[in-house]
């Protein structure tokens, strides 16, 4: 006799690994290595700040990519992609009109409720500005709901600065409203024109005019940056519960299965990539 199968499992989502197709509307180089992509999905992405998507090209592959725009009602998705691997290299050769695959949004992201009414401090290094923009945009859009916004953004040299015009527009908005403060730094000017400061993102922290009790921090940058920024923030009297960190791992599935993004027992793609720091401070693999 032939075997009868078990009852169908309601947990089965046949489309779990299928991308939705999005069309590229705009590709703009931001630096020698990074390009800005604006793509249009069939429906709104419905994401929170700090979430990520699995971006793919059929026949080439799939990779986790940070969402760079704030939540939006239309069908647009903005990303900044560094030419750093197989998929991203091919992506850099694409033009408007071509299609990319999108799965997601995935992960926890930032919750604006944690930031309302607070003095918000965003500390970013290098590519960290890409996901952080998804938090900065909604804050700027409803600035009256926040006490203030301070952005400390560093990169290696003026040539590597991302969102150049937009960051200066934030700066001008700050001068108009008095609620936004932008500190732009480079490690070295490398003899290029530079209208900001020279130094590491940790430098301004000690003298920053903030009320530690009223401050909430969002932090995103290369692994080496976190330790030193956290030391400075702790010295200013901030507790780990006031700090949100956005961590990078190389997810292969986005849905808590492939194991690649695990930080000790935590699945970065599910519980992260944004964590309230006190919830992962004890995890040795978080920032090493």
């Amino acid at each position: 006799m032939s075997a009868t199968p078990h009852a169908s499992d309601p947990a089965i989502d046949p489309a779990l690994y299928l991308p939705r197709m999005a069309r590229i509307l705009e590709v703009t180089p931001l630096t020698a290595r990074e390009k800005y992509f604006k793509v249009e999905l069939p429906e709104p992405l419905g994401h929170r700040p700090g979430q990520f998507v699995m971006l793919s090209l059929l026949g080439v592959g799939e990779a986790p990519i940070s969402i760079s725009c704030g939540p939006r009602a239309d069908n647009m998705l903005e990303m900044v992609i560094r030419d750093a691997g197989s998929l991203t290299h091919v992506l850099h050769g694409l033009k408007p009109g071509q299609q990319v695959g999108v799965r997601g949004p995935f992960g926890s992201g930032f919750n604006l409720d944690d930031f309302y009414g607070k003095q918000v401090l965003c500390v970013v290094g290098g590519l960290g500005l890409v996901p952080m923009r998804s938090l900065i945009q909604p804050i700027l859009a409803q600035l009256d709901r926040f006490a203030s916004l301070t952005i400390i953004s560093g990169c290696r040299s003026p040539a590597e600065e991302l969102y150049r015009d937009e960051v200066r527009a934030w700066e001008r908005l700050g001068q108009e409203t008095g609620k936004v403060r932008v500190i732009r730094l480079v490690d070295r000017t490398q003899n290029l024109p530079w209208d900001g400061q020279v130094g590491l993102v940790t430098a301004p922290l000690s003298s920053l005019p903030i009320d530690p009790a009223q401050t909430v921090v969002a932090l995103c940058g290369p692994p080496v940056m976190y330790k030193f920024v956290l030391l400075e923030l702790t010295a200013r009297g901030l507790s780990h519960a006031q700090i949100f960190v956005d961590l990078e791992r190389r997810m292969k599935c986005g849905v808590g299965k492939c194991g690649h993004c695990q930080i000790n027992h935590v699945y970065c793609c599910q519980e992260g990539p944004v964590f309230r720091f006190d919830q992962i401070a004890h995890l040795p693999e978080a920032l090493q």
Partner: protein
Amino acid sequence: MSAFFVHKEAVTQWIRHLARSNTVYFPQRAGQSGFRFKPVKETTEIQFDRYQPTLAPPGKKLAPAEEPLFRYRKQGDAAPELVPILDQSPRILAGVRPCDLKGIHLMDRANREGHGDPHYLTRRTHTILIAHDCLQPCDDSCFCDAVGSLGWRDNADLFLTSLEDHILIEVRTGPGETLIQGMNFPVCTDVAAVKSRAEAQRAQPFGRQFHADLARIPAIIASQWQAPVWEKQVERCFSCGSCNLVCPTCYCFDVHDDFDLTDPNAGQRTRTWDGCMLPQFAEVAGGHNFRPNPAARQRHRVKRKFEYLTERFAEGSFCTGCGRCGRQCTTDIDIFNIVNDLIDHAEANS
């Protein structure tokens, strides 16, 4: 549910009979000392007495080394056609031992959590499990009793217990029931008596035992992040990943795309086994590796089995005690010894 007490010869004939209209996997000799779960043919030797854990656990039939996730066909300016590949072919895994039955249970838990994995779960719903109890340890490597796998039967559709020249067949599910319909097996009138006779034959102690209660092990391991045991236990490690790949509860994977030579507009996305002992597993774009040395990777593997997943799913252990990783490590690195070393180190330093 019903139970039958059947002569072994009749059970053998029944397995063959099932194999005529179903794909039935049963452990068969492979090479000099190994066994593999292979499809039963007319000439296949069906025997329940001599067994060594198969090279790969039977659960890998539900998560093969390489499997397509979907096929695609680009259609110019229009959206491409995307077809998920879900394997609905029915299969029976027979002769599954309690350790591997537990392994499949744990794989079910992991694959059902949150976003259910459609590929695993589709195969799983089309799979019937005929399990077979162990009354003697299969060899010196197993430690199933120490991790609570011995006697595991929860997810068996049919559970078999050998007693001399007979086998007790306990029916546990509807799909299991369908497999014995029409066989006219003699009903077992006193299941409890047969079971207690079998229990009397079970080896005591059964296989290797840890130096601490299983319930204490997650906390002990959690306290041993810096223990010298990790370094000591990887001095001989090749980072070859064999321990991951033969594990009944390892399910990590990598994903890649490939297009067809015959039509570059069509192709598929495929996933393949991956393992946290392999050097590049925790590397991120740009090259930073969050577990750059074998000790860090070994620690992660052991903690997944005895702490992380154990606590996440509230299971006694995510290690099934099958012993495959230690048995197949060419330099005899054995997770059982690592755990015992950690227990000893914790005791010595408390």
